[in-house]
């Protein structure tokens, strides 16, 4: 039961060397970078993405050891292993090979290295796109506005020994999240109006306290940066900000400080990335069970700051159910509770000021969160329904009986077809034959219309016997709604889609297709109406705004609750012939959000508000509600040090 001190593996440089470097080469803006190249005389080996051994991840992400050798660790340049103008790892991407077949490169995922023979057809038929019409990224690195530094702040920061950089690449990398317009701008080599002036890497809670103190002293704007997976423009620097903007990168605060097996909680630094957290806990036989789709890259602090939701929330809960204690550094000091009681009646829960505060109040530095023993057994499953209505009715019934598996998702027909397009080349004639037989059974024998049928994917977890029992219960319910069990394989494929879909957007952008996703939560009785109306609205708006090709609009019900569901939309269109595709896209998304709100959907289920959806906050929580939040902000951060201007 002794607390364990764990570390995710990467060691940042010592602060001494950083300051030394700056002193020895004061003139060049590459000073830090170059110095560390010189200073690091030996090669360091990191395990950036070690074998994923846990049951929960390894089935989805391929087991692959990536050992990378770098000459320098300074600046912790994520851009060396991750794309600077797209999603995810540099080595993983979709492309159409010389034969015109799609393949997924790299070794990290189950799909990696595989040829996907039906993707091209699907792609061309769905979007009216052609693999011959390429729109490759403009490769000139974007011009970066010069850093405007607060010299006094920089001087004081140096004295603390906390590493920092004002390297253009570092700054641009942290100037954006993954909204379409952000990635599009990077690809097109367009200039960001405003980027952080410098990046700072605190190593622990106390470093953050020092940085925030200095920021207050010198009136510097701080923007916390975790995994960088925001899709709400939350990481964009406000163009009107005239102060020096410092991006506070939490990536070095990535240790599990202790595990308390008696209470089943772990105390973790907030910069840790989802997959690292899970892997490290797995080594001790535990997991958090919190698996948002972005878990490969998103951070614990980011989850807290946006009220994240994980795919297996039915068993483990959403982030607000998982946290026991949060430590936050604000301009007024540190907020934390005095004990770890599992529930308190001490006025409004102060955690709820922090959860979803989107970096406007301070930096989450340490979190105590619940952990669970790794489940003994895991099983995927899937059910085919004749149509979306039947599927939704089934999910509703499952929610009513409170017997939802760890994950249950319903994909509409468009997504079902999309999933099929991602089927790898079939290896044997026999599998081909079996597939054909299954298809025949469902479409001909059972009379399902292939253009109507939908599929629910399931994931069960627990001890073996219970899982099997649970499975039977769910399949029985499904049967009453005309659902047919469709096998583990189809279920698993559905979850693979989750991790690779962001990569697919990059492929689309290579061929004049822009795509984005957005989500909402909605009461059960409005799910169908909302889905239909939002899709129709998107189609209509695209037409009215001159989109030449039929857009792809697809949705899935991704979470079930007692009183409603979370619905996730994908939306993509071929933008050939449009002068400003991003603007068109944004107007359509705006209209879609209005439609969601008019149909009883929420502003966001888990993505957050950022700057993208600020305009609807008043409507969503009333102007009094906005006032309440504003008064908290005014008290905690009177000088707007945390000036990312999200939310309010």
């Amino acid at each position, binding site marked *: 039961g002794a607390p364990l001190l764990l570390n995710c593996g990467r060691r940042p440089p010592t602060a001494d060397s950083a300051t030394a470097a700056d002193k020895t080469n004061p003139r060049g803006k590459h000073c830090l970078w170059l110095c560390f190249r010189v200073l690091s005389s030996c090669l360091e080996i990191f395990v950036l993405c070690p074998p994923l051994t846990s049951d929960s991840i390894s089935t989805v992400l391929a087991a692959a050891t990536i050992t990378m050798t770098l000459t320098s660790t300074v600046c912790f340049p994520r851009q060396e292993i991750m794309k600077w103008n797209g999603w995810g790892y540099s080595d993983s991407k979709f492309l159409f090979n010389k034969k015109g077949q799609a393949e997924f490169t790299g070794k990290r995922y189950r799909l990696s290295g595989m040829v996907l023979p039906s993707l091209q057809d699907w792609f061309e038929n769905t979007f009216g796109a052609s693999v011959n019409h390429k729109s490759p990224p403009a490769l000139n690195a974007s011009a970066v506005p010069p850093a405007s530094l607060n010299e006094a702040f920089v001087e004081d920061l140096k004295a603390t020994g906390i590493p920092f950089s004002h390297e253009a690449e570092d700054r641009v990398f942290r100037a954006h999240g993954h909204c379409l317009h952000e990635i599009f701008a990077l690809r097109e080599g367009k200039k960001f109006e405003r980027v952080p002036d410098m990046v700072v890497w605190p190593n622990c809670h106390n470093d953050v306290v020092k940085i925030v103190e200095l920021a207050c002293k010198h009136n510097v704007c701080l923007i916390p940066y975790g995994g960088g997976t925001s899709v709400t423009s939350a990481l964009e620097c406000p163009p009107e900000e005239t102060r020096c903007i410092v991006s506070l990168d939490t990536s070095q605060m990535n240790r599990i400080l202790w595990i308390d097996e008696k209470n089943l909680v772990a105390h973790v630094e907030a910069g840790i990335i989802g997959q690292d957290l899970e892997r490290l806990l797995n080594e001790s036989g535990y997991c958090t069970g919190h698996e948002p789709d972005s878990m490969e890259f998103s951070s614990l602090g980011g989850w807290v700051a946006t009220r994240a939701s994980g795919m297996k929330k039915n068993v483990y809960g959403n982030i607000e159910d998982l946290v026991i204690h949060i430590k936050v550094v604000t301009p007024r000091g540190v907020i934390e509770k005095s004990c770890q009681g599992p529930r308190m009646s001490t006025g409004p829960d102060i955690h709820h000021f922090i959860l979803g505060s989107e970096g406007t109040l301070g930096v989450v530095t340490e979190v105590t969160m619940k952990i669970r023993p790794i489940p003994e057994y895991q099983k995927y499953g899937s059910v085919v329904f004749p149509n979306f209505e039947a599927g939704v009715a089934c999910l509703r019934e499952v929610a009513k009986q409170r017997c939802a598996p760890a994950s249950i998702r319903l994909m509409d027909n468009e997504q079902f077809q999309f999933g099929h397009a991602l089927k790898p080349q079939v290896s044997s004639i026999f599998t081909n034959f079996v597939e054909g037989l299954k298809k025949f059974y469902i479409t001909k024998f059972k009379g399902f219309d292939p253009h109507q049928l939908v599929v629910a994917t399931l994931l069960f977890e627990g001890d073996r016997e219970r899982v099997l029992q649970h499975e039977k219960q769910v399949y029985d319910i499904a049967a009453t709604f005309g659902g047919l069990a469709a096998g583990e394989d189809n279920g698993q494929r559905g979850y693979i889609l989750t991790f690779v879909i962001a990569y697919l957007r990059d492929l689309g952008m290579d061929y004049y297709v822009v795509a984005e996703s957005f989500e909402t939560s909605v009461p059960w009785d409005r799910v169908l*109406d909302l889905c239909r109306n939002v899709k*129709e609205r998107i189609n209509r708006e695209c037409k009215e705004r001159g989109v030449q090709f039929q857009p792809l609009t697809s949705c899935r019900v991704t979470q079930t609750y007692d009183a409603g569901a979370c619905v996730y939309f994908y939306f993509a269109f071929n933008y050939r012939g449009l002068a400003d595709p991003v603007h068109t896209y944004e107007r359509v998304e705006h209209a879609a959000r209005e439609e969601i709100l*008019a*149909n*009883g959907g929420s502003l966001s289920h888990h993505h957050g508000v950022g700057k993208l959806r600020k305009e609807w906050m008043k*409507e969503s929580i009333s102007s009094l509600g906005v006032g309440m939040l504003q008064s908290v902000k005014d008290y905690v951060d009177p000088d707007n040090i945390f000036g990312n201007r999200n939310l309010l």
Partner: protein
Amino acid sequence: MSTVCASCFNILVFVTLQQRDPMLKRDGFEDILEERRNSSDLKYALRCYAPVLYKGVTPCKANMLKNIVLQSDQLHYVINQVSQESGEAPDIIQEEASVILEEMAHRLQISTVRFFAFALSKAFKTLFQHVCVNEEGIQRLQQAIQEHPVVLLPSHRSYMDFLLMSYILYTYDLALPVIAAGMDFMGMKFVGEMLRMSGAFFIRRSFGGDKLYWAVFSEYVKTMLRNGFAPIEFFLEGTRSRTCKSLTPKLGLLNIVIEPFFKGEVFDVNLVPVSISYERILEESLYARELLGVPKPKESTSGLLKARRILSEDYGSIHVYFGQPVSVRSLAQGKVNRSTYNLFPRHIPRKPMEETQSFVNDTAYRIVRLQEDNMVLKPWVLMASLLLQNLEGLELSVLTEQTVWLRGLALSYAAFLDWPDHAPTAKVVSSSLALHRGLACVSGGRVSLVVGEPLGPVTPEEALFNRAVSVLSCASYRNQVLHVFLRPAMLAVAMHTAASSKKNEVYNCFSFLWDMFSNDFILCPGDIVQDFEEACYLLVKTGAVQMPQQDIVMTDIGQPTLSFFNGLLEPFLQGYQVVCRYLCEEASEGLTEKQYIPAVRSFAVKLILAGNLRCYEVLSSDMQKNALAALLRMDAVRKVKVADQVTLIVNKMAVNSIDDILGGKLPTQKALLARL
């Protein structure tokens, strides 16, 4: 409101023109009878009928539809509510609901439709010269039916209307509508059932407080709409207009068909205004008698058979214009916040919010105006307007000359005039007179109204009555053109009655008239400034009026136009004045609402017989009701319920001053003060 600035004027005119522009580009017509005259009706009735439906929906059997309604959450909620209130078991209430639905529901059968297709082909060919339909409108409708639930909103001038509508949709292979019909048809044993089988569903005329009835009814309509099983058709005006003026729209059904959009149950609803114009209305003289107080014959099968007589007459042509589908979604954009429906379960009935109510009201008026705009006018309506201003008769040559003049004026005001191409004017006038020989005759080169043949000796009252029938019949044709001239005509009257030519004062008079006549004519609530600007624009455009600085003055050539307009509205001004005078001079203390109409009628008869009044139109119960409604709205008269009777309490001072303004004796400003 009192000052209207010049810049505001320009903007408004621009807006008005923009709004009206699409209507000005009207489609051409096809005669659907032509084919019927050249090929077999039987074949036509038995031909393959396979209409396209909303988004490939499968047609729903009448019984299945009833089950969906009876099992709906909406109805269950109300059943439980009624059961709790009445103490009756839910099963019994459920049974009641089932009975109501049975009485209400349509039983659309293609065989019945085929029967009507055959029978109506025969009847139409004998009654009418042409039945003309704008085919582009049909194409638009076909498109709309596939994309959205469609509500057909025809004008209502004749019993023929809804059979005609179904006949046309059948002819063009479009989905047959289900039609909301008044329960009075049900009285016609056999015919009622025939209509039911051709798609009519029957609703009680009044069911004020009956929650259950309302729930069954609204759920029945909404179920059909939500699923897009069939286009829904009803008459916004609620009943046949006996005067050929459009009636103030009724909102009940419109509320029902729009609500599914607000609740997000459908993406959009398309409202399709349909204008059905008859060159001669079958019920022409029947209506006039009804307005004069001869009660409407009860709908009965034998009555219908007696009406066969009409089969021998020529009723000219019918024009049916399917207007541009109006998207409720686009109309509601920025006017109704749908998210206000988010916090209440959708199956619980709720009174619509104020925002919604005013939207629905506004929409109803817009649709009726769209109906008016696409009504086809025949030369005769122009002649009728002229004849009514010259009750003593008119030289044929003068009538011809003035008709030509009026045609020019109507066309410049964008009237939808069906004037025969390439025919000499004299021919047009004479053939119009021939078709309407029951109303006007030419003798000795003079044209005058026909007065019903006296059979033996007649009392002065009977003679007066006969004359009134022909005046009112004739007025029903003039009324058809009123919507074209209404706004400039009100301005002309306002200019005439205003104390000076100051724009402000004219506007005050105009707004008084606008308010006064808003039961008689379709004036969209809140459009008063826009209507004023439109009137100014039109009169300036045709050169009748100039607007130097802040004045409105007649031009040298404006006299004929302005005096025609004054004459056009004269019967209304006089009629309202007679009502005012009656209320001030004659009305007794305990005048009940019931006594009101006969009392005004006999008051007017007295005046006419004494030679003090030449206006017969005041004898119309329609005008009397509208005048009373206006006075009630203006608080000059109040209704008080005493025991079982509603009594009218008259504020004589207020009524008197309204009388004076109408007569041009009192400036509007003072009158308005007096009202306060």
